[in-house]
């Protein structure tokens, strides 16, 4: 292992501060502007809401395990799918990718913190507050009509279901405001990441020498700036409709339900690319290190990501193929959606090219990365099926599309996040995660994921719509729904392994040292966990893999790039 002889040094940092009282520690974390602590808090928030969102999903799967079940009422079920979607997108996935971003980017570009440390803190706390506000609706949602409780309008909150005529009380307002203010946090962090990446790279790190993760976070941050604002605008318009006599989306008064859809999906589609691009970033760091080869085709990976960033802004109405747009409008969105699949697919080939001819070490991060590759391939192909508009007329609004997007988000993003956890937990805490528990986590989750989400495509093909609290027997849906629900049990068991692993390893794990994976980017040159100032001496780099150059002085990367 090369970790002990690196000339690039951090200073001495201990994993746990000794002699601090718990109020002092709590105070330190609450007032911190240190990107590493904020990153950890973002990730911790994501994990907490992941468990809550998972419970909501489990409630739905119990209700749907058999036809005409009575586990929960329709009202409760409708709140469950609304809260599950809203939680997972805005309070799990977004914080998770931002958390890894603000933690890793300064370390990977050789600097001491983000461009705007206080804005970083503000972004985190307002996002957390949004999550708390959303969940306060369960107890605080009582409104003028006593019609209280959590929102039940779906996470897209389509008009005119959200008008005061059809959504009485304040449950819809909780959705609107909680997501709105979380959006402010996202924009703040987007600005912060983009500025940091553009202005604070260490000497020698030209744009062409940034780790691929940093490039991908740059594209993602740029997208955040354009993506969130249409949703914020629409939500403000909705509040005007609900309380100030507006009629933007009030169809009874001549307003347009379709315009809400356009606003929402102009946000909604780039949003999912905002989520997947960091997942691509983690894979692009993990696969090379565990294949022992550089990423195949770095320039094309950058170009493809930039292309995705732009083209993904033009595909949104593929969520609206059934809404009754003109045939040439539908055709346009078919073309752009298929077009965005090209740079996305190319990345799979580049990761394959990275593995090809390598020496693949199947440690837990790489196992999750391999799962990602298989699953993202399938998810992308079901996406191509959905992009063919006439096929979409059958598949959309059904369990086929629910299976597709869970394949992307769980099979893709969550697997990639798990890989990132196992890869960077040692850096963040100074301890290795337990490999055996990690393998249990992987296999339980992979099997449970496939049982649930492979089979879920079938009820969709058999005509089962989504967002239904129960279904009719005799249509051939029962056995598939039962098996889909059983897969959820395995996934829950896997998450339990994961949580146990994190807790156990933090206290009893094997010490990691600086560079447990024999990796090549700058974060592995500092102690684990890094000291608060990251680098004692700001490094200077000559290539994309500065630690490779140090470990292989006879064959450095800068000779070949």
């Amino acid at each position, binding site marked *: 292992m090369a970790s002990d002889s690196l000339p690039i040094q951090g200073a001495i940092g201990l994993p746990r501060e000794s002699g601090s009282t718990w109020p002092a520690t709590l105070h330190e974390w609450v007032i911190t502007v240190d990107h590493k602590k904020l990153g950890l808090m973002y990730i911790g928030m994501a994990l907490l809401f992941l468990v809550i969102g998972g419970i909501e999903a489990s409630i739905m799967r119990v209700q749907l395990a058999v036809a005409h079940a009575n586990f929960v009422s329709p009202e409760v079920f409708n709140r469950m799918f609304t809260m599950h979607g809203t939680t997972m997108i805005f309070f799990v996935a977004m914080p998770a990718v931002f958390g890894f971003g603000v933690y890793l980017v300064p370390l990977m570009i050789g600097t001491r913190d983000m461009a705007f440390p206080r804005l970083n803190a503000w972004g985190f706390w307002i996002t957390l507050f949004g999550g708390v506000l959303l969940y306060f609706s369960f107890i605080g949602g009582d409104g003028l009509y006593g019609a209280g409780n959590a929102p039940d309008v779906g996470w897209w909150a389509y008009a005119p279901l959200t008008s005061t005529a*059809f959504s009485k009380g304040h449950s819809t307002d909780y959705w609107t405001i909680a997501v709105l203010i979380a959006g402010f946090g996202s924009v703040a962090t987007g600005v912060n990441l983009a500025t940091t990446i553009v202005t604070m790279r260490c000497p020698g790190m030209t744009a062409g020498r940034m780790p691929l993760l940093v490039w991908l976070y740059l594209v993602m941050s740029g997208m955040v700036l354009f993506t969130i604002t249409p949703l914020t605008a629409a939500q403000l318009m909705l509040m005007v409709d609900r309380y100030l006599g507006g009629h933007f989306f009030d169809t009874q008064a001549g307003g347009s339900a379709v315009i809400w859809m356009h606003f929402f999906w102009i946000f909604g589609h780039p949003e999912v690319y905002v989520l997947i691009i960091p997942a691509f970033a983690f894979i692009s760091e993990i696969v090379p290190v565990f294949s022992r080869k550089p990423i195949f085709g770095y320039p094309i990976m950058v170009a493809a990501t930039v292309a995705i960033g732009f083209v993904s802004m033009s595909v949104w109405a593929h969520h609206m193929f059934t809404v009754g747009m003109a045939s040439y409008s539908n055709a346009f969105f078919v073309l752009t959606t298929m077009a965005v699949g090209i740079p996305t697919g190319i990345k799979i080939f580049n990761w394959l090219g990275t593995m090809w001819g390598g*020496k693949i070490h199947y440690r837990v991060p790489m196992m999750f990365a391999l799962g990602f590759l298989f699953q993202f*391939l399938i998810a992308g192909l079901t996406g191509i099926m959905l992009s063919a508009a006439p096929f979409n007329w059958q598949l959309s609004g059904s369990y086929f599309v629910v299976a597709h997007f869970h394949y992307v988000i769980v099979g893709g993003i969550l697997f990639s996040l798990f890989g990132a956890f196992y890869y960077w937990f040692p850096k963040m805490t100074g301890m290795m995660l337990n490999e055996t528990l990690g393998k249990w986590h992987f296999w339980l989750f992979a099997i449970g994921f496939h049982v649930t989400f492979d089979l879920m495509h079938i009820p969709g093909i058999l005509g089962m719509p989504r967002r239904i609290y129960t279904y009719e027997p005799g249509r051939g849906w029962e056995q598939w729904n039962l098996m889909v629900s059983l897969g959820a049990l395995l996934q829950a068991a896997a998450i339990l392994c994961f949580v146990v692993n994190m807790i156990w390893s933090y206290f009893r794990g094997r010490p990691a040292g600086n560079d447990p994976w024999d990796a090549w980017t700058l974060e592995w040159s500092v102690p684990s966990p890094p000291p608060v100032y990251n680098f004692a001496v700001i490094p200077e780099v000559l290539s994309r893999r500065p630690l490779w150059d140090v470990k292989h002085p006879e064959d450095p990367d800068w000779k070949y790039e």
Partner: protein
Amino acid sequence: MKFASGNSLKLRRLLRFGGAWLSAACCLAQSASAPTPTSTNIFAPNSTPADEIFGLSMFVLAVTGTIFAIVFSLLLYAAIKFRKRANDDLREPLQIYGSDQLEMAWTVIPVLIVIVLFMTSARVIHAVQDARRPPGTIEVTVIGHQFWWEYRYPQYGFVTANELHVPVSDPGHPTPTFLKLLSADTDHSFWIPRLAGKTDLIPNHPNSTWVDPHEAGLYLGQCAQYCGTQHAKMLLRASVDSRADFDRWVQAQQQIARDESALSAEALEGRRVFHATACVNCHAIAGTKADGRFGPDLTHLMSRETIASGVAGNTAAELRRWVQNPAAIKPGSLMPSMNLTDTELDEVTAYLLTLH
């Protein structure tokens, strides 16, 4: 680094994965080739829009299936062939940074695939969305409500609810049914998978879809756009009738004159309850003073097989249960319970049973 062998486990996972998919595909193929009366399988089309979609979907599946087979095999091969062996010499493999030719190839080929898929999709979009109405087209206006379906037949001058009747269309002399889709409240979506893809019913945004079923029978579906509490129970029933049966059904629906002298005493009393209490605010019965439009038209209620948009059978017991307390059968339905006494319930049910 400690090496762990994942190959046998990967093989097992692959077999499990493949086996599940194979059995699923067989089930689907079986139910598509011999669809039951309650089948809602999108791969068992019986009408031109659904047929066109089926043809396109088979082509898309073939293309994506081929891509999957190739890339999956390559990934699997790489994952196994290039794994670190137990007798590894700890040297780093050859560091390859890229290949312009490979990258060009795997960009150009997907572009060509996309062009082909786009062209085929565009053709089907045009064929379905821009289809012309031949003479003999049946026109139906569908109005989506929370949580039931209103059907108006402007060519024949009557209104009905929840059970659609359309004639079989003979390809030699086509008589498709064009459905104008409107909504009285929130978004809905009309989805009978074996007849056509779904099209949404959006208030203030009229839409249109069409079907030309090849075979008579019962075709099922349901609302496919979340519209509120009872979205799950906004079921669709389309009876595709032979031309003769359809004409007979139309004639029966057009009947207004009613021989009310034939009503039993109980039914007459029920008629009085119906017209004197709030029923007439929501429901219409042609030929009487009841002309409410908020709820389903009940003129020919007994010509339907189900009530409450497919949720319950159209029997005396179910009718009585529904009128007594709709929330017991469909909680969240907008029909309130009028708190009728037992006698009144028997009387109203007896009256409803006369609405043939």
